[in-house]
């Protein structure tokens, strides 16, 4: 609009500054509006007044409110006091709404600077703030340290000179623990006063057990409060979830807490518990978790499910170590402090200034104890003075070097002033060392300490033994006893004589050797006696005895020893017993067992006779004569016994003559073949001569066999023998039942019972209607044709099915069905042609039925020609009815 119509030129801008309203633009706009409203105005107006009070009025009307608001805000921003007040109003809310992480990041540097500043200007303020937190911690830490120092000091002082002290020193030596450890272990006095089992999740008390005479406030409240404190510590110090506050200590009381998966076990202990107690308590917690993990996991405030837990807690509460009756330790502390004060003025000050000196002195004490424990060292005097250590005493030259024992103790050797006098310790181990040095015992002698006595054992030549004896005499004045009685004199002569005797004893123990005489003369050995040639060679026994063979002179006479084992050896050599004979010694008798031919037995008998004069008995009665004839006879007898045991065979006579065997008797044809039974008996068939008469055995088994063969019972019939009677059970066609009855009558004459009372006629009623259907079926033919027309196919199909079904059912009943196909013809034509056509028709039907799955052996075929007409032959219909094949059913 303004671009097209702009007649007004505005020579000057009235706006004094940018913030004020653009008066010119406003004026233009108003004029423009006026022109549009009144076109005449356009002509009359040609300028804008330089200052128009109406404009100002308009401006006031339009924006007066905004102007005043703006001036207020501007004022607020310009006045620092007012701005601070306004921001202060919203700062907490703004801080609360700000994302915590960002706010924290933004504030952290400022806060750090502020804290730094505060400490620089006035450390007191922050100290005051932190005082309640730090002081108890520092106090506790210092207190614990002082406690420890006092404890060890107390205990050490208390126990150095007492009977317990000695006992514990011994225990420390025995177990390898330090003396102070042992002292602490025995001096710890504690008692578990309460055990709380607390649900980890809710802080609720599961179970609580109190020691006798121990009191506490409401355990339920304590339980929860303990959990709350755990949470508090965890939250306050950003501890990880899995860790927990495990020890709280308040004066004489300690709270130990063991945390399990579902429950925390807090034990309240009065006194100084040993560290092992942690293990014990942990173990109880573990067992509780094992035993009741489900109930613990599901604990919802109802502790009736966990009543058994209390008994387990009870075991913990019973753990305690009673205070010993040695008096109150603090008195000893006071005494000790006084003593220390007298011993060295500086010590107390240095002890007060720190524990370094204290530790140093205790290391010195440990060194002195170590020296005192050394054999061959006697500490006469030791003291600590002006930071220097003085020690004096006696030492054996063979004892450990006190100086070398210093290394590792961290005691500065420069501060140690020692004075040692040498002496000879009479402690057995030193005497032993010295004896070893002076006597130089041979390798075959061992010196050892046994109950404070020095014992020499082994072998030594007489010269050494003499020297040892002299040494023993010297020692007897005050020193330990030196026992040399166990040293064997092993000078060469003695040794050789001993060895010779050992050889002689060995010979005397040999069977078959008799030593008559032996002696030692001028270093030569002589021996004479008897020996069996089969006994061990005396010469061969020499090696290993250390007797020189050259110096041995033997004279042996041979003799035959009658000792059973020599006799046995000789018999074995002379008789050559076969492999089947075993010779052995039983109660000084020689016994032969097994099988041998008669020749060998004869030789054995001769040998036995020879032996009978003074020698051991030779018993060969257990050797069976197994000469071939005897064996053959045995085999024959076993064969005859076998035959006699056979049913259906009766042996009448048998004999063995000239190596041949003869047998005669009766046998049922159905019985086993005697010839076949020969195999495997070892009897030569060529030498057997048999004569058998056949007979019919009336043994039921044979009767059954015969009946089965002659009657051929159907499958539905079972023949069995019950108490000697033959019983026929089952169903059979009427014809078979008749035959069975006939057989029963015949057998009864021979005294055999054939019981047919349980044999029933086969019930074929259900087959009858099928049979009827088959027998009323005819297959018809056209005149002169031997193949039925296609219209007969349904009848053939049906007939085939019926025949198959009938045959199958009959078979199930144990009878065989057969079907007779009879071909017929009409009377037209010649008789011979009709006969052959009728037979051909039956054959065709057989083939067609066979094709339909009927087994051919069930189908019989015959041609009846014109002889069996179905209807009289007098009409066309009649002849067509007669051209047929009919079926009859037979059951076997």
């Amino acid at each position, binding site marked *: 609009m303004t671009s097209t119509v702009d007649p007004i030129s505005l020579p000057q801008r009235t706006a004094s500054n940018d913030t004020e309203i653009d008066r010119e633009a406003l004026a233009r706009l108003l004029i423009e509006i006026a022109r549009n409203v009144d076109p005449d105005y356009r002509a009359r107006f040609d300028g804008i007044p330089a200052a128009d009070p109406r404009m100002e009025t308009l401006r006031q009307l339009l924006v007066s409110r905004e102007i005043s608001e703006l001036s207020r805000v501007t004022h607020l921003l310009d006045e620092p006091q007012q701005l601070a007040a306004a921001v202060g109003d919203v700062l907490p809310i703004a801080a*609360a709404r700000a994302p*915590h992480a960002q706010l924290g990041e933004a504030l952290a540097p400022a806060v750090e600077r502020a804290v730094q500043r505060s400490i620089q200007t006035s450390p007191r303020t922050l100290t005051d703030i932190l005082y309640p937190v730090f002081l108890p911690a520092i106090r506790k830490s210092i207190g614990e340290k002082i406690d420890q120092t006092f404890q060890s000091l107390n205990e050490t002082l208390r126990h150095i000179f007492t009977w317990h002290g000695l006992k514990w020193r011994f225990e420390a030596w025995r177990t390898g623990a330090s003396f102070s450890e042992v002292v602490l272990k025995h001096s710890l006095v504690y008692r578990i006063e309460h055990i709380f089992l607390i*649900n980890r*999740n*809710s*802080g*609720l*008390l599961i179970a609580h057990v109190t020691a006798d005479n121990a009191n506490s*406030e*409401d355990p*339920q*409240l*304590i339980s*929860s*409060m303990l959990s*709350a*404190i755990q*949470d*508090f510590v*965890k*939250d306050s110090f950003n501890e990880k979830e899995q860790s927990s506050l495990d020890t709280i200590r308040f004066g004489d009381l300690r709270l130990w807490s063991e945390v399990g998966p579902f429950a925390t076990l807090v034990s309240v202990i009065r006194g100084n518990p040993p560290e092992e107690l942690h293990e014990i308590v942990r173990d109880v917690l573990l067992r509780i978790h094992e035993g009741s993990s489900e109930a613990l996991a599901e604990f*919802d*405030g*109802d*502790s*009736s499910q966990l009543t058994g837990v209390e008994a387990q807690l009870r075991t913990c509460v019973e753990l305690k170590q009673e205070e010993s009756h040695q008096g109150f330790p603090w008195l000893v502390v006071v005494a000790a402090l006084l003593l220390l004060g007298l011993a060295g003025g500086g010590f107390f000050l240095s002890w007060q200034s720190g524990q370094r000196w204290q530790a140093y002195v205790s290391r010195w004490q440990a060194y002195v104890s170590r020296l005192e424990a050394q054999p061959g060292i006697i500490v006469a005097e030791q003291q600590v003075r002006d930071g220097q250590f003085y020690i004096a005493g006696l030492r054996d030259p063979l004892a450990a070097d006190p100086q070398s024992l210093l290394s590792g103790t961290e005691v500065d050797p420069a501060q140690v002033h020692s004075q040692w006098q040498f002496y000879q310790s009479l402690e057995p181990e030193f005497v032993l060392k010295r004896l070893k040095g002076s006597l130089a015992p041979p390798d075959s002698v061992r010196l050892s300490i046994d109950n404070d006595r020095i014992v020499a054992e082994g072998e030594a030549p007489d010269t050494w033994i003499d020297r040892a004896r002299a040494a023993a005499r010297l020692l007897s004045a005050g020193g330990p006893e030196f026992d040399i009685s166990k040293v064997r004199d092993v000078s060469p002569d003695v040794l050789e004589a001993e060895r010779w005797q050992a050889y002689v004893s060995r010979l005397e123990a040999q069977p078959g050797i008799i030593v008559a005489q032996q002696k030692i003369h001028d270093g030569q050995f002589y021996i004479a006696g008897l020996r069996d040639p089969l006994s061990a060679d005396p010469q061969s026994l020499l090696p290993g005895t250390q007797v020189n063979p050259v110096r041995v002179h033997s004279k042996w006479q041979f003799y035959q020893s009658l000792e059973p084992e020599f006799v046995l050896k000789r018999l074995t050599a002379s008789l050559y017993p076969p492999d089947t004979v075993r010779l052995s010694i039983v109660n000084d008798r020689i016994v032969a067992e097994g099988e041998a031919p008669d020749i060998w037995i004869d030789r054995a008998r001769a040998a036995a006779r020879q032996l009978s004069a003074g020698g051991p008995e030779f018993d060969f009665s257990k050797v069976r004569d197994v000469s071939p004839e005897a064996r053959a006879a045995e085999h024959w007898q076993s064969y005859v016994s076998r035959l006699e045991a056979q049913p259906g065979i009766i042996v009448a006579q048998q004999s063995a003559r000239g190596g041949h065997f003869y047998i005669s008797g009766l046998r049922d044809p159905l019985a086993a073949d005697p010839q076949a039974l020969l195999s495997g008996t070892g009897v030569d068939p060529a030498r057997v001569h048999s004569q058998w008469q056949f007979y019919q055995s009336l043994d039921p088994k044979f009767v059954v066999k015969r009946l089965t063969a002659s009657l051929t019972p159907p499958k539905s019939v079972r023949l069995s023998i019950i108490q000697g009677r033959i019983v026929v059970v089952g169903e059979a066609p009427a014809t078979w039942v008749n035959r069975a009855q006939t057989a029963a009558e015949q057998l009864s004459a021979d005294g055999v019972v054939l019981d047919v009372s349980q044999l029933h006629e086969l019930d074929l009623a259900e087959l009858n209607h099928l049979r009827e259907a088959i027998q009323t079926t005819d297959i018809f033919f056209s005149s002169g044709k031997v193949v039925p027309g296609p219209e007969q196919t349904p009848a053939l199909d049906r007939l085939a099915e019926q025949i198959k079904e009938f045959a199958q059912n009959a078979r199930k009943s144990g009878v065989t069905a057969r079907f007779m196909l009879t071909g017929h013809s009409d009377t037209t034509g010649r008789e011979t042609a009709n006969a052959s056509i009728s037979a051909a028709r039956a054959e065709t039907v057989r083939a067609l039925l066979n094709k339909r799955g009927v087994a051919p052996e069930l189908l019989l075929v015959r041609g009846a020609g014109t002889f069996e007409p179905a209807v009289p032959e007098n009409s066309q219909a009649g002849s067509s009815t007669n051209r047929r094949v009919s079926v009859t059913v037979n059951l076997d």
Partner: protein
Amino acid sequence: MLQKKICMLGGFSVGKTSLVRRFVKSIFSETYLTTVGVKIDKKSVALPDKTVDLILWDLAGEDDIGSFRVSHVRGATGLVLVVDGTRAATLTAALTLRERVEAEFGAMPFVLLFNKSDLADQWVIPDSEINELRKFGWQIYLTSALSGEHVDDAFLQLASMVTK
């Protein structure tokens, strides 16, 4: 012994501590609240068939929800929300605390106590607002630590709720 952990929540100086002081067994002094931030008390409540020990965790009143130690509520089965009837803001504080707890541990039974009912002239919570809250099915009691009015009723109610 059947126990349930109950947490008492409410803004600063709503009177939780004085509310229970006369009605529960307590062995810990109130300084615990300022030191550990929690004080444990016990209220035994006899229900018709059993007695329940309510272990009350009195959490230090915090108007600043950010510093509220939600870990103290772990394992609790019920809440006592306390509101100062003379300061409307404490209702919001109590409800916010409850939301915070539910977000962490899921919903749990609670009773809502409007305390200081004896200061009728300074009462600022209109009955209509309380009735609105009752429509949620909430168990609400107007209590007075001074007179003991309805305090036992409230604990009895909560005890039966947490043992269901």
